């Protein structure tokens, strides 16, 4: 099983969500984070202009069985991108075990 963490633009979220849904990735969790990356945004507050690379992003945490990894990645790469700096990153790591709290069952079945 893999954990796929994607850090994407907030504005791309609903598109991504729907695309994931279409390829059968219905289960995940997300929250908002601030990201520091290459992108810089210029702002003005009370006459002080400043450029910040602290930008609001949405962080998706998707745990999938190995056979779903590729399609999830493909979907994310396709729908989350705009081609401009700041589209975000995806990180993949290993998950040793998963449990479904409701039933106590464990293993890949819980992700279906």
């Amino acid at each position, binding site marked *: 099983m893999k954990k796929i963490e994607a850090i994407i633009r907030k504005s791309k979220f609903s598109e991504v969500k729907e695309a994931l849904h279409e390829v059968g990735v219905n289960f995940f969790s997300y929250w908002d984070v601030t990201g520091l990356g290459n992108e810089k945004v210029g702002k003005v507050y*009370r006459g*002080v202009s400043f450029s910040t690379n602290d930008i609001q992003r949405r962080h998706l945490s998707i745990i999938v069985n190995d056979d779903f990894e590729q399609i999830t990645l493909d979907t994310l790469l396709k729908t989350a991108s705009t081609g401009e700096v700041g589209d975000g990153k995806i990180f993949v790591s290993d998950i040793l075990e998963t449990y479904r709290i409701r039933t106590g069952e464990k293993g890949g079945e819980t992700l279906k």
Partner: protein
Amino acid sequence: MDTSAIMGALWIIISGILVFFMQAGFTLVEVGFTRSKNAGNIIMKNLMDLIVGSIGFWAIGYTVMYGESIGGFIGTPSLFYSEGADMYNLFFQTVFAATAATIVSGAVAGRTKFTTYIIFSFIVTVVIYPISGHWQWQGDGWLTKLGFIDFAGSAIVHSVGGWAALIGAMLVGPRIGKYKDGISQAIPGHNIVFGALGVLILWLGWFGFNGGSQLAFGSEEDVIAVGNILINTNLAAAAGAAAALFYTWLRYGQPDISMTLNGALAGLVTITAGCANVSAGSAAIMGVIGGVLVVIAITFIDEKLKIDDPVGAVSVHGVCGTLGTILVGVFATEGGLINGGGASLLGVQVIGALAYAGWALATAFIVFSILKATVGLRVSEKEEIEGLDKAEHGIGVYND
């Protein structure tokens, strides 16, 4: 007391109630324009201003201001004012005094010791402000005699509060992180909706502030006067907001929300001195001048003087208070420069404006310096970073 006088009392009372509400406006503006971790502390400081103003002005401040004049400079103080038939005036004057005290709190927000602030607020209420008022509103003050005009207090209330705020902000020093390598950093306010609501409440209260300063409502003259005052007040506020909006749009490429809100207040402060003495057109122009100047002043104080005033109190109340006072000499229907009145009124207005600025700067400097040397002005670095709410009041204002 005849019907006219009773109607006058009614108007003064209603105006006083409106001015009272400005406390909520100040609190919201200051809370909204600063960071969430200090919101509770700001609430407490504003409450303290109201407490100290209410008690202190009754206990002694009112007579310092309106007591029999000692040399045109100060009233003869007496304790615990209790002239029954004059209590409604005391009420009206009390809420004014609370306003003067409150102006400072925004400028020193986010880093000042609570105890220190209470002491300063008390001194403003019972010494600095009442003496300011005495010079002009008591009737025998030295500025009254010169023919100085400050109808509702651009100089007496706002500039005094604003210049004291400048000294406070300067001596307390900027918030940690406000200047990096000498360059001003943005520290965005945490809730501009509160700020906007605050400004609308202040705008509302200002109808009482300026309108009530007519101190009468018993004759056709009063009706005309108050009608004009309200229109002037409203036009100046609108013009000030419009000016700041378009000026920031031009200058920064985007209409700046918090500056536009300051612009409305700038218009209001600017018109306060002359609201009963200028035409509607002049009021609108004065509002525009105030609205542009406040933006320039905020940037200047922030980036050039490097004095950290989170809410723009110095620019709004100090700069525009002084501006409005002087502009009376230019725009007054009677005696104003552009209305053929020559420069004499203008001269008097400049003298008065400078006198109040000097008075406020000097007394605030003395008081804050003493406080700095004794109780200290600032909280510790740790407390400041953590936020004053947790450090001084045990808990933050926002929870689940």
